[in-house]
């Protein structure tokens, strides 16, 4: 038993966590930037699916990785542009527009797959390419550490770099300042001549770009083909990861990691004869529990009636709040002791 347990938490397991976290992480950062701008992007699922499909098709037909990358990212941006056009310009409810786009992707990828290849299930007949894994020079030779850090997929490394890039962009650049201002008080931004729609458009394009990388990873890294519905809810999981992680890119990365961990665990635990359905549903149960706990500690003291005052719900900086909660608890206990 302990051998098996050890086996679960092996280097392979860590590698597996990193692998399954990558697409969730990218999409979750896509969710973050869109949310901060006040234009939540629920179309992550459809965006991922579409770029996974386009990447495979373009690489299969052109045998060119760069073109596949370009087309895949472009398809993600196009999805965002359509969402932005309808939500910002045509005043469609952004959530409904996103649901429409998800429906479009689900059916559209199958339709075009079948039109182009004659197969409705997967792109097995297409000779598509994959993006490479990368060995980090020098680091790969360090024992243990090299095994963990080196040899991952190139998009995984890109994703890790993007955590820092996004944190910098959002909190240290003029663009980030504008995105946050537009999300927090669009009227204020508008009153100083910042176009709310333009800023949200930019945020959605960034969101689409990040998410499309996640999609490309799925079909050109994680596996080497496109299959119908292959995102399997990862776009929605990314939303949950963002809800957990709050408003900083680091927090969001932690949220994504939690889901990646749970998913990887569900594969490993199958060796222990734990039904995979249990482990598969674990991240969702954890999310519900954490959201509940998070909401609970954010409740104001005299919530009884205030709670009913408005329909407003809470979302935000989870880890910060949890930290505050525990430090407050600790403080109270200290007070009692002394």
């Amino acid at each position, binding site marked *: 038993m302990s051998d098996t347990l050890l086996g679960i938490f092996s280097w392979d397991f860590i590698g597996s966590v990193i692998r399954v976290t990558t697409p969730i992480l990218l999409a979750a950062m896509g969710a973050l930037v869109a949310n901060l701008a006040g234009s939540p992007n629920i179309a992550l699922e459809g965006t991922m699916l579409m770029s996974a499909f386009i990447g495979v098709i373009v690489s299969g037909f052109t045998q060119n990785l760069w073109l596949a990358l370009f087309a895949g990212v472009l398809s993600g941006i196009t999805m965002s542009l359509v969402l932005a056009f309808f939500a910002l310009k045509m005043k469609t409810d952004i959530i409904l527009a996103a649901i429409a786009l998800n429906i479009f992707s689900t059916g559209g990828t199958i339709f075009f797959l079948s039109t182009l290849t004659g197969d409705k299930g997967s792109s097995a007949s297409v000779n598509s390419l994959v993006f490479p894994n990368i060995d980090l020079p020098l680091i790969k030779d360090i024992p243990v550490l090299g095994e963990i850090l080196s040899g991952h997929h190139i998009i995984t490394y890109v994703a890790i770099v993007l955590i820092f890039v996004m944190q910098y962009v959002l909190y240290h650049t003029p663009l980030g300042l504008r995105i*946050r201002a537009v999300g927090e008080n669009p009227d204020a931004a508008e009153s100083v001549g910042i176009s709310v729609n333009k800023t949200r458009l930019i945020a959605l394009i960034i969101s689409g770009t990040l998410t499309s990388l996640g999609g490309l990873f799925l079909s050109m890294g994680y596996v080497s083909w496109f299959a119908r519905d292959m995102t399997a809810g990862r776009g929605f999981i990314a939303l949950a990861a963002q809800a957990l992680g709050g408003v900083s890119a680091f927090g969001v990365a932690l949220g994504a990691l939690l889901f990646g961990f749970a998913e990887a665990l569900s594969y490993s635990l199958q060796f222990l004869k734990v039904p995979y359905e249990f482990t598969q549903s674990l991240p969702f149960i954890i999310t519900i529990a954490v959201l509940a706990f998070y909401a609970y500690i954010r409740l104001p003291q005299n919530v009884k009636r205030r709670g009913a005052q408005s329909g407003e719900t809470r979302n935000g900086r989870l880890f910060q709040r949890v930290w505050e909660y525990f430090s407050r608890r600790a403080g109270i206990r200290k007070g009692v002791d002394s």
Partner: protein
Amino acid sequence: MKEMHSDTGVSILEMRDIWKVYPNGVIANANVDIQVRKGEIHALLGENGAGKTTLMKILFGFEHPSSGKILYDGKEVAIASPHKAIAMGIGMVHQHFMLVPSLTVAENVLLGMEPKKGLSVGMAKAFEIVRQAGNQYGLSVPVEKKIEDISVGMRQRVEIIKTLVRGANLIILDEPTAVLTPQETVELFKALRILVDRGKTVIFITHKLNEVKQIADRITVLRKGHVVGTAEVKDMTQVEMSRMMVGRDVEMVIEKKPAVVGPELLCVKKLHYVREDKVAVLNGVSFSVRAGEILGIAGVEGNGQTELVQIITGLLSPSKGDIAVNEKVMRRLNPKTARKSGMSHIPSDRMVRGVALESTVEENVISDRYFKKPFSAYGIQSPRKITRFTKGLIDQFDIRVDSSKRSVKMLSGGNIQKVVVAREFTAGAKIIIADQPTRGIDVGASDFIRRQLVEERDQGVGVLLISADLTELLEVSDRILVLYRGEVVAHFDEVEGLTEETLGEYMLGIKRMSEDDLKGYSQETATDKEGMER
């Protein structure tokens, strides 16, 4: 009255024949002409709802006119967005500040024109720019603090600096004094004078005549979306201005019989309320309302009135203290139990709480009694009886609407308030909490509502009236309390002979009655009482 229009002086702005029709069919501006001269302070005067703010939003590119022409510096312009307005040199300080609470003063001021250091925002430089801009016009601000941490007066300064760093030559201020303390108002007026001395032009939206007299050079008066006239302030008296504003002499003579006071209906005991941000908004307020009297509460907005009303009506739970109705302390006080105990409530924020805009007049007037007979039986509504009842109310309260099934959003402000009042006055209440019952509605409707309040009082109802309109308070109330910083600082059991000036001194914290005089109303005496009770 257009002949008052004179054309001396160089005009910086002219708006000609402006029309604005909102999607719901409401006409906010009709055939409006206005001309503003370079270097003047031009007051735009009018009652709430006269179309002042809409007109300025058009000027600032927030709204687009349905038709009309705008000339700026002699050239015809189309102002498609605030961006365009700013580029032309127009700045606006809105009634509700356009600031991002979690960002710093400097970030707010320079939003959209941030100095750069590499790819990042150059914070040090940003602080310097804002500090300098402020000092140049005598407006110093704490540049590194977050907006959520500074006072309202400070925030307004930030707003003005925002327009200045963007090169504004024409600055629009929308009711800037509404949220300020008297000292802050003085400071603001000083700053405005400096601005004008340095060549800026100011448009000042207000409905306060004394402010116009103090600060403005010329006025344009709007009424119901139309321009009534333009004039030099020095040529006009306040009475003349008020006539232009309201269209007739304000006759506020309400026949009032002496109050026949009955038992204590509502008793507020040592009420404390501390907001989530730790600010103590109410500090031990105590008073009572008796049957057959109107108790008025005076005070500058933001001195705890809102919280007081919300606590009494069960929308907010107090940090400390009790509410007793009919000498019974209310344990689980919420809107439902409050209404059950015989309270009705005319809320100050009628669009937020007073009505459901998409719903019909019928649905709005039965919202507190839908479950009772004859409006429903066994959980099933009786549409015909509801309609008949509503039609009765429409007649009785003179609500101008063609059908009881019209959705409330199609009604004018005054008529919406009449819907609220119709419901609250027919609830069979023993206590009526009237919070700013006539705010922002036309004179006719206001007069009607005041008379209704007095009539209810004559029927033996206890009325608590909270109003920013001192004339109204003095006219209607039998007793008056003054609330300042969450405390009762004065009480007058006799309204006869009391003047607005006297009330003003207490409201602004210049005067305060002695603890002896305040026995039973203020904190200290309240604690004494507690000691005696235990």
